[in-house]
């Protein structure tokens, strides 16, 4: 099958490659670009581990072809840190609140939460839970992931994070 030339911006850098039409975006990101932070979990559009940010949308990159992303602007988990290399508010939140155990879902959680906080910088707890409902974690029970996003929200808004009493 003839390959197609694609160019896109990934984490601020212009990248290009030759892909078969059937190449899934997640495979292009992981194998062509060697950005292996984006994980392949279920491969059936359920788990959200492969979530990347495309032109301001959270997208499961296992359910889109790389040719469809031609010309787009993509952020993966590798592009989430601050420009100076320090941890972003979200990354710091996941670290401080222990928002992970095995860590497999974490890239998808962080990239999804990144867009959630862009659209709604002060989400309520139910809004956070609905906002990450396309991302499955089989370790944490979500409690600390929700706290991590609350921590990041507080930091972005310049207020001190108050952990809710349990």
């Amino acid at each position: 099958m003839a390959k197609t030339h694609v160019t896109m911006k990934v984490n601020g850098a212009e990248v290009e490659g030759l892909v078969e039409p059937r190449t899934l975006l997640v495979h292009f990101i992981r194998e062509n670009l060697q950005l292996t932070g984006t994980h392949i979990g279920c491969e059936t559009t359920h788990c959200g581990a492969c979530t990347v940010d495309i032109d301001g949308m959270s997208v499961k990159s296992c359910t889109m072809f790389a040719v469809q992303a031609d010309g787009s602007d993509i952020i993966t988990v590798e592009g989430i840190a601050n420009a100076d290399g320090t941890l972003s508010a979200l990354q710091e939140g996941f670290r401080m609140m222990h928002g992970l155990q095995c860590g497999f879902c974490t890239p998808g959680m962080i990239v999804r939460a990144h867009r959630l906080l862009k659209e709604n910088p002060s989400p309520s707890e139910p809004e956070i839970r609905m906002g990450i409902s396309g991302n499955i974690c089989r370790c944490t029970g979500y409690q600390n992931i929700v706290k991590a996003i609350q921590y990041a929200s507080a930091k972005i808004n310049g207020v001190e994070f108050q952990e809710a009493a349990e």
Partner: protein
Amino acid sequence: MIPGSFSYHRPASVADAVKLLADLGEDARPLAGGHSLVPMMKLRLASPAHLIDLHGIAGLKGISRNGDTVVIGAMTTQHDLLASDEIARSAPILHETALLIADPQVRYRGTIGGNVANGDPGNDMPALMMTLGASYRLEGPGGARDLPAADFYQGAYFTALEPGEILTSVSFPALAAGHGYAYEKLKRKVGDYATAAAAVVLTMAGGKVATCTIGLTNVHETPLLAVDAARAVIGTSLDAAALKTAAAAAEAIMAPAADARGPVEYRKHVGGIMVTRALQRAAAGAK
């Protein structure tokens, strides 16, 4: 999982897309959001030789109001519906329903056109479109035609779309001022299809139901209009007896499959409960 090989086409106009579909025949499939088709391709349950991606056709996306008619382009995503002030004003039940479809990531990609055109009995928008009295614009090699949503669904994944035709927009009359509405969906988890769901749009006058339409999702191989159930509540104050009659009339036309969501009797039973809850909530919200 990797899909089989295919050729990728990205036409810039509906005319070009229709021509491609007509020329390439049944080996070609239009691609909208892809969140039904791409998983099927990865499982090799679908292996089209040609994909015709509709994302390059700018005119297929957007929400507009033309007098009393709301028109939604087929490539408008569920996320677009949720973000639209026009939808919030003209058809809040569409907002409520879109929010119950899949999950945020899927809603950024999933389109209303794909949802209604795929013919999947589990999809939520078809029954809602029937409830709203919507019609679909179908464009093919012979030109364009408009078909009522109620005449579109013929069986599971079997619709009135002719070879070479693309569903390009849905339109429906703006809802009456003061109408009440509800979409009640029972599902096992976020992202699941409905075990059963019911859409209700009604108007009240003097404490009694003046007009009512009820649609049903995933309790038959096609979406259903529960005509007898709706008729049973008109003129009533939705007292317990009227609700019971309506639920029974709705259950009488349900023929769900027994699957992981439950046996037939259970799915019909909860289908009746969805009708009851939707009627009550719609009436409570009507002015």
